[in-house]
């Protein structure tokens, strides 16, 4: 299924990298002293893949804690030789990802288990610490890195204030939320986040996962992680419908939304179904003033990994033809996770030079405002 994209030698942007905390107390230097001491007593465990979720501080609704095929859901070869979790060691991540694949820019989407915390005060402090940690330990140390802002998204006004604080640093290019939150994303309680994204010119990144208390599939809780991994598009489809029908895209005309790690082969069918429903039932949602398919093509972006792999490579071209979103597809590796996509192997069919350039570089560079590597070198960035 994999096809060599050997002809493409241009700049490469990786839109989904999951850097991790090197230790349980790595955020302590970035937290106020009173919270450091309170957090010690809460024995908070910092990652989404923690073994125990019963401690007071990190309690959330249930969600995506299905056992993964590998420890910390990571490539077996991604554990830094010097210790620590996969992608917690910048030097090793540079060698294994950025240098190995000659990546020009990578967007960090740290999944730290903060946004879904129900202790909203602690979540706000942790989000603030995480953003300062990102700037200090990652963005300051490699000019190829960009990052998503970590927010306590179940407390939208606080999240919006944090977005305003962090957005002054242009290396933060996006706000990160998960695909299963407590309510559907279009609901008004989340609008302060969208307003802040628009106000600061930031994309909204919706990453697969979440602890909103809802079953992983619309049919309930499945038995196996395989089902979770294969059925994750369901939540994304519901969120696209919610964002459109609630009128979010009309209220925030500058809002740009990136669906990360959700695939995209399902989008044509969703567009057809939403358009059909809108023609019949549009009076129910009068704010939706044009076909949903048009709104999707105008306002949504998608990342590649883990994209669907059609049975026959030619079917990938049919999919691109149905989507009409070649300007919206952005390459991602999902490093260091176990389902990592290798940049020269992942795209399932031989693409034209134009398609490769857009998917591997130009679409992300345009969305996130990334200078071309040549420009960056000239300005000493």
């Amino acid at each position, binding site marked *: *299924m994999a096809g060599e994209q050997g002809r493409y030698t241009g700049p490469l942007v990786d839109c989904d990298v999951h850097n991790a905390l090197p230790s349980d107390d790595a955020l302590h230097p970035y937290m106020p002293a009173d919270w450091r001491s309170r957090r010690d007593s809460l024995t908070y465990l910092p990652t989404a893949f923690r073994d125990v979720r019963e401690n007071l501080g990190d309690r959330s609704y249930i969600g995506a804690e299905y056992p993964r095929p590998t420890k910390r859901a990571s*490539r*077996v070869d991604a554990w830094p030789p010097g210790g620590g979790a996969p992608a917690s060691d910048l030097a090793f991540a540079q060698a294994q990802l950025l240098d190995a694949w000659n990546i020009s820019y990578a967007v960090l989407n740290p999944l730290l288990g903060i946004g879904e915390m129900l202790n909203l005060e602690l979540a706000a402090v942790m989000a603030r610490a995480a953003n300062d940690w990102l700037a200090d330990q990652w963005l300051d140390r490699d000019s190829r890195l960009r990052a998503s802002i970590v927010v306590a998204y179940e407390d939208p006004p606080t999240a919006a204030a944090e977005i305003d604080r962090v957005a002054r640093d242009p290396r933060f290019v996006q706000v990160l939320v998960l695909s299963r939150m407590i309510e559907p994303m279009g609901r008004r309680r989340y609008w302060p986040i969208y307003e802040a994204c628009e106000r600061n010119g930031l994309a909204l990144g919706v990453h697969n996962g979440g602890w909103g208390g809802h079953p992983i599939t619309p049919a309930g809780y499945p038995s196996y992680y395989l089902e979770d991994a294969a059925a994750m598009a369901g939540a994304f489809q519901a969120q696209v419908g919610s964002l459109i029908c609630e009128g979010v895209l009309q209220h925030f005309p500058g809002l740009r939304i990136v669906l990360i790690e959700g695939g995209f082969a399902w989008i044509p069918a969703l567009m057809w179904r939403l358009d059909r429903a809108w023609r019949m039932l549009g009076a129910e949602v009068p704010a939706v003033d044009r076909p949903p398919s048009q709104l999707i093509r105008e306002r949504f972006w998608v990342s590649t990994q883990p994209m669907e792999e059609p049975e026959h490579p030619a079917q990938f071209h049919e999919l691109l033809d149905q989507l009409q979103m070649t300007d919206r597809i952005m390459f991602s590796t999902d490093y260091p996770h176990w389902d990592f996509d*290798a940049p020269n*192997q992942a795209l399932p069919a031989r693409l034209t030079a134009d398609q490769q350039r857009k998917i591997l570089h130009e679409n992300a560079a345009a969305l996130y405002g990334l200078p071309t590597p040549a420009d960056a070198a000239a300005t000493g960035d």
Partner: protein
Amino acid sequence: MCATSELPPGARRIVEVDGRSIGVFNVAGDYLAIRNRCPHQGGPLCEGVQVGELTSDLPGDYEYSRPGEMIRCPWHGWEFDLRTGASWFDPARRRVRSYKVEVVPGGELEASPPRPGLQPGPYTAETVPVTVEGAYVVLELAPSGN
């Protein structure tokens, strides 16, 4: 490739031969070799975890056999049979190259015709007297016939 004592049961070595990275495994005394490159996305297949073959005739009825004879790619978990290179999910069509491995007594190794990449024994150290004995693991690049 190495002396048999350097590749005991349960051990593996990844060697570079003519620009190919190849993993050689000692599975309970059998020497097995496959290419260290997953046909899926090029992951370092031979750095993965060795597992057994898990089959099921009915839900809830599982049979675990041939421990250590399958390897799971460290990237995406595709499994391959170390004996044949055949994948677990599509053994007829998706496979990784496998190689023949033989164990040759040290004395014969020196007398055998030269082979690419092979360092003929006996190995000698500066001050230690060495006798020609024991057996050596020899990796052949020709297809194993599987």
